[in-house]
């Protein structure tokens, strides 16, 4: 009986593989996981690490704004851009007061490019843009 059970669970393990999406090398480590919806921000933040210098501060936002995604992307920003100062536009699914991130030197914007440029464009990628923000007045 235990051997039969082990065989059944082994079959279930094989069935759990993402056969339909393929087993090829993914673009991100979450591409086929339950967190796959984070893949666009994941890709952009990895690329943003090349244009946001050490010790600079940045905020990650989404277009359209979404407090849950912005919470998750803030955390991904902390993970993928060590040595920079990530400031949250949202925390635990709630937008933070704008003062929390007003001083951010860079804006990582996941999604559509805004109509009005929020500063100098430093990266234009399929998943979004990165801007060096104008100094707050």
């Amino acid at each position, binding site marked *: *009986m*235990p*051997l039969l*059970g*082990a*065989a*059944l*669970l*082994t079959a*279930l*393990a*094989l069935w*759990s*593989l*993402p056969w339909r*999406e*393929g*087993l*090829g*090398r*993914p673009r*991100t*480590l*979450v*591409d*086929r*996981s*339950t*967190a796959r919806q*984070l893949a666009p921000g994941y890709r952009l933040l990895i690329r943003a690490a090349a244009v946001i210098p050490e010790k600079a501060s940045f905020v990650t936002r989404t277009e359209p704004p979404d407090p849950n995604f912005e919470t*998750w992307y803030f*955390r*991904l920003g*902390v*993970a*993928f851009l*060590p*040595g920079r100062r*990530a*400031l*949250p536009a949202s*925390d*635990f699914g709630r937008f933070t007061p704008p003062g929390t991130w007003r001083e951010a030197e860079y804006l990582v914007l996941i999604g559509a490019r805004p109509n009005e440029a929020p500063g100098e464009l430093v990266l234009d990628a399929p998943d979004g843009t990165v801007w060096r923000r104008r100094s707050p007045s």
Partner: protein
Amino acid sequence: MTALAWLGTLIVLPAVGAPLLARPAFGGFAPVTRAILSGGVGATLLTFVLTLFALAHLPWRAAPVAVTAALLAWALGAPVRATAASPEPERLGRAALLAACLSAVCVLAALASTLAGAATSVDLFYFWGPKAQQFALARGVDIAFLADPLHDYMHAYYPPLVAGIDALSTIVAGRFSWTAATLTFPILLGALAAGLPGVLRGAAPRRSAAVGSALAVAALAVIGIRANIAGNGDMPLLFFETLAMALLMRRDSEGAAVQLVAGLLLAGGAAAKVEGLAYALAAAAIFLVLRRRNAAGSIRTAARLLLPTAAMLGAWFAFGLTRQLFRDYSEYGRFFVLHLEFLRRVPTAMATALAGTGRGLPYLVPLLCLFAAGRPSRAALLPLGTAFALVLFFWFTYLHLSTDPSEWIAWSAPRVLMPVVMLLALAPCAPAGEAATRDTSGPSPG
């Protein structure tokens, strides 16, 4: 290349534990089993030394930390006299061979899933990885980083093993490797598949040991893939807990040598995740009750099983208190302030969460196998009692949230109840008869 260097550093773990496991007292274990037990002991001792270094304001450097931990392993083994018994040589039967093949397929499935980006835990990016990365940059536990209010989701109080070992790999490799961190899931599952049958051979015939191991590995593979545990603390926790339980189920678990290693592995579990402490306390308490020793013997056994955990968490909480970083394990509510209005909802939500993971099969199949094995032996009360205690612990824990805990349970229960599945799978391997649980006058022979 970074991933290879990062993973290559993990080879140091068995090397650190080897001065203990290489002693003649452990000659009864097969070389591969000894190497895997050495890895667990090495990870525990390295974490303990990392914590002591942090407490003493000493920077984390790979060589001094590893040498100190290896010396500690050597010193711990010096008083060990009793030996682990050598099981009777037994031919590798067809069932054992098939079980080994099933385990290998499960490990390959876990590897393929991880490499395909289908098993990654998002918690790796939220806190396990960032902490390790930051600790490596700071060459120690980065207090400013953890105390920053913007990082309050990092769980500063979480025990230090995963972030500490990952930080050490990062220091050696030069940078953190996210891919390598996720690969710890199939690697540790593979280590269990390779090492567990050898440990269980001290409790059961070769066939039962191999089949029980395969059942446990298969269940963990399915849940691990579906609940996305690659890169988080769940697989390290399971690695320690599984091997510790298998050691305690052995017929020679009366011996000091086996108890010492089991105690170190329980400490590894307690240093991997918060619930590892509940597991260590439950397993040690049930072991002591079942063994019915005299007072002095019980105290010695309790010391071997729990002193490593006490030392590990004592050092960690001393660090937290002296740096005013944390004082206890509380985040989701004040300890013992229970919200009994959710008393019924918690088990319902837990059952729903389990049913949604592989249609509940990875939880049901080991349970059905247990029922099919007939009335459990007295020795089986150790894994079964520990499983029961764990379920009660999580029920108790979930009751601390002041709001409806259903969502919390939905994303955490399938993972955190994995040790229960493993215990159900191992229970039929417990030795039958009183010999396994009765008091013996001294260390076990062999």
